[in-house]
């Protein structure tokens, strides 16, 4: 129903309030898919296992996808492999963070 790119675009509205970048440009969203019935599946990680906002962030991702038309369900899969690191982020994020 929706392509990976369309789902990523919807999820890119979710911003990490600590760093100020959205989850897609941070490289935290690994994969997203949606079947013809409108069941979406998002595979994501967090920058650290100890992230105190982990429940909220997953909730925001879920809500961002649910806002898309004809979405019936959203399943969030939080994974720790591969472990996130800064090389997974977009170039402009890396540049912005590396500014002293």
């Amino acid at each position, binding site marked *: 129903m929706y392509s990976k790119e369309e789902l990523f675009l919807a999820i890119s*509205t979710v911003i990490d*309030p600590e*760093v100020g970048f959205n989850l897609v440009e941070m490289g935290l969203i690994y994969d997203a898919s949606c079947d013809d019935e409108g069941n979406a599946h998002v595979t994501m990680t967090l920058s650290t*296992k100890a992230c*105190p*906002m*982990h429940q909220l962030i997953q909730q925001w991702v879920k809500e961002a996808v649910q806002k898309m038309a004809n979405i019936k369900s959203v399943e969030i899969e939080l994974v720790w492999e591969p472990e996130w*690191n800064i090389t997974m982020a977009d170039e402009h994020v*890396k540049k912005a*963070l590396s500014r002293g």
Partner: protein
Amino acid sequence: MFSISQDFAPPFKLIAPFFIIGSLFYLASVAYIFFISAQNISMLDTKILGFVHLFLLGFIMMTIFGAMAQLVPVVLEVGHFGVELFYAIWPLLSIGTIMMAFGFFSYPMLLPFGGVVVLISIMVFIMEIFLTIKKVKKFNLVMKSILLSNTFLFFGIIFGLVMALGYSGLIEADINALLRSHVFLVVIGYVTITIMGLSVVLLPMFGLSHGFSTKPLEKAIAMVCLSVLLVVLSSFIKSAFLEYAGYMLATLGLFMYFYFVQTIYKTRARKEIDIYAKSLIFSYFSLIASLIFGIAYIIFGFEPLLLSSGWMMFFGFFSFAVTGHVYKIIPFLVWFEKFSPLVGKQKVPMLVDMLPKKSSSAQFVFCAVGVIVVAVAILLQNDALIKAGASFLFVGALAFVRSVFYMINYK
């Protein structure tokens, strides 16, 4: 799905008093410095003991306890056993600390009563932590360090109560023997090991560091724990060899810890030197200064070196580690409470927007200058310099109180 933890953000009204009262105790302990004379500073001077308790219990422990209410589920990966118990901790700790400070200052009879009140508040905290740790199924380095540090605190506080009873004349106790154990158990065993353990979670989280080894930290914590045991043992069996072996091990462990922190710093993706990074950099260099003064004291036996070492450890290392984290923890808690329900509905601030730039910078600059000036003043035993340093610290502490209120009341 990998579940991490629950109840990451306890109600803000539960935690806010710890930070507000902690900042006010910081201001009070800085004001106390004006009443200290350089000529009669000594480790056993009752005015110094009053000052140390006001600072350590009122500011450092109060703020750490408040922070732990939020951090324990984050680092232990389980929910609190009874987070409501924290409602009882801050009033008891506040009352007990004030009674103890007055007890040391001029009314020794207040000491055992203040000591008992402090004991109750800290025991409530320790029991809550232990019962929360009981829920943990698989222990990692952070969990082990929290278990160890709280065990040291448990014994340290009992030794402290026995000393308070001895000071007031209610019982006969070998205060000198107990003092070394009490200081080492609480200052190194609890405060230092807690900071060391939490840093493996907090420093990489805020700096976005990856790919570093935790081996140096494991070794550092093991060395510091062993040093605490050696020093405590040495005070009971009167062994100078064990005592100095303990000091040596603690020093090596803390240098090893500094090396570990440096590896996190080098591997961080976030290079911005904000108020958090500045505070921690000053904090860790103060730790090194403290260790160098401590080593110099062992070599030369000049007591002001030991006092400067303690000063840099308390007002340099502990203070700046605590204030730096306050600038991260309070905005998060306020944001979580006030703004997270509004995400997606209206524009919400970023955490960095909630920091008072001017007052946090003023706090950093004035406190850093004050810490250095007082350290020099202690070495030179110069009264005018102590007052000058205290003046800088007082302005810095006022800026810190202002920053805390600004963040808490952010709308």
